């Protein structure tokens, strides 16, 4: 046993930098994945097959392959096809798309659980289909499935560690940088795990607050 945790505080700046980027990356991907997820969900309940099928195909592919592979395709694969993304954007795009597909599944179930009278009432008041969906059906559906979406956001935060594999300087990679300087993997991976755990707790509290607010309105 040769453990020396005194090396960890010396790398505080590096680790905090990593925490900051993990937060930026995750929050950005969360927001995008929720918006995209809502759009996918609406498309998946639409009556137009030409719209529905591509999204269905997309969700089959994204649900059936590893996120790590999706990251590689977006970053390395698209570069071969001439689309050069920097690592950060590639990470955000892959994370957002991956979780958008799962969110869409959840929101779709939420939309189908909303009484169809809501939609019909909106339409008979002269509101267009798109507006009825956007202003009446989807907001109610989102509130109902908020806990399930919250679980996805927690998963997203943890899975964001994978973007270290394409070289995004977030928490995992900053721990790796610290290790390459100190040769102390155990201490720094443990520190990174503790920081992720902490971020997770904060996110859970935030989600609890949001849930409480969304349920109060009913």
């Amino acid at each position, binding site marked *: 046993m040769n453990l020396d945790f005194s090396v960890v505080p010396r790398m505080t700046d590096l680790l905090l930098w990593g925490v900051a980027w993990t937060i930026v990356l995750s929050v950005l991907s969360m927001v995008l994945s929720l918006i995209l997820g809502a759009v996918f969900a609406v498309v998946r309940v639409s009556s137009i097959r030409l719209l529905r099928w591509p999204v269905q195909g997309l969700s089959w592919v994204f649900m059936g392959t*590893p996120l*790590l*592979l999706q990251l590689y395709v977006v970053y390395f694969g698209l570069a*071969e096809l001439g689309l050069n993304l920097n690592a950060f954007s590639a990470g955000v795009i892959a994370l957002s798309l991956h979780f958008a597909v799962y969110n869409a599944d959840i929101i779709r179930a939420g939309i189908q659980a909303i009484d169809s009278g809501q939609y019909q009432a909106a339409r008979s008041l002269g509101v267009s289909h798109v507006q009825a969906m956007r202003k009446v059906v989807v907001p109610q559906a989102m509130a109902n499935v908020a806990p399930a979406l919250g679980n996805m956001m927690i998963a997203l935060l943890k899975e964001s560690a994978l973007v270290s594999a394409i070289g995004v300087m977030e928490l*995992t990679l900053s721990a790796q940088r610290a290790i390459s300087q100190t040769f102390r993997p155990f201490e720094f991976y443990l520190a990174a*795990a503790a920081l992720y755990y902490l971020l997770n707790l904060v996110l859970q509290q935030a989600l609890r607050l949001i849930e409480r607010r969304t349920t109060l309105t009913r």
Partner: protein
Amino acid sequence: MDFDLMQRVWWFFAEASVATIYISALAIVLGLCLGFTAALASLSRLAVVRWPARAYVSVFRGTPALIQLFLLFFGGLQLGLELTPIQAGIIALGINIGAYMTESIRGAIVAVERGQMEAGRCLGLSHAQTMRRIILPQAARLMVRPLGVNSVALIKGSAIVSTISVTELTYTAHRFISSTYKPFEMFILAAIFYLVIITLFMRLIGWIDARVALED
């Protein structure tokens, strides 16, 4: 797309799928063992038994699997625990998914009506006997789907062991990229094999679920 190249190398990906399935299968077995133990422990009346199980679930669900894998493999090496990459991969994946499976199993046990336990106890069975003979068989039906979902997540999650150079599907794609410089084709090929594995596995789960489901 270079289909010619894809045709020449696909067999290596088929072989690598066997490695992915092998790693996943062992990790799922490990996860199930841990999951059952921790689920029963977390339902115990004794705080000393309950507490470690709850802590296990909270810690392993609260941190990224990638970090857990690195901690076991690289951190273990530092502490003199010399695991091969494949051993570390299976153990880390198994421990990680075990935490999720604990929740699935616990949820299924809790979902069995309370009266079942009370009736069992009234008939003179012990707590353990009622659990084993009355509750668990009924809970088993309920846990097929959630455990299936956990297992699908694990098969996909097994891609992370490529980062410690275990030769499975994702790592094989990487290896061929460094010799062919065709990332898009190689990753698509790996994706196809994952899709086949996942789709077949989901069929299997659906089949098992249909067989154990109660007709009502």
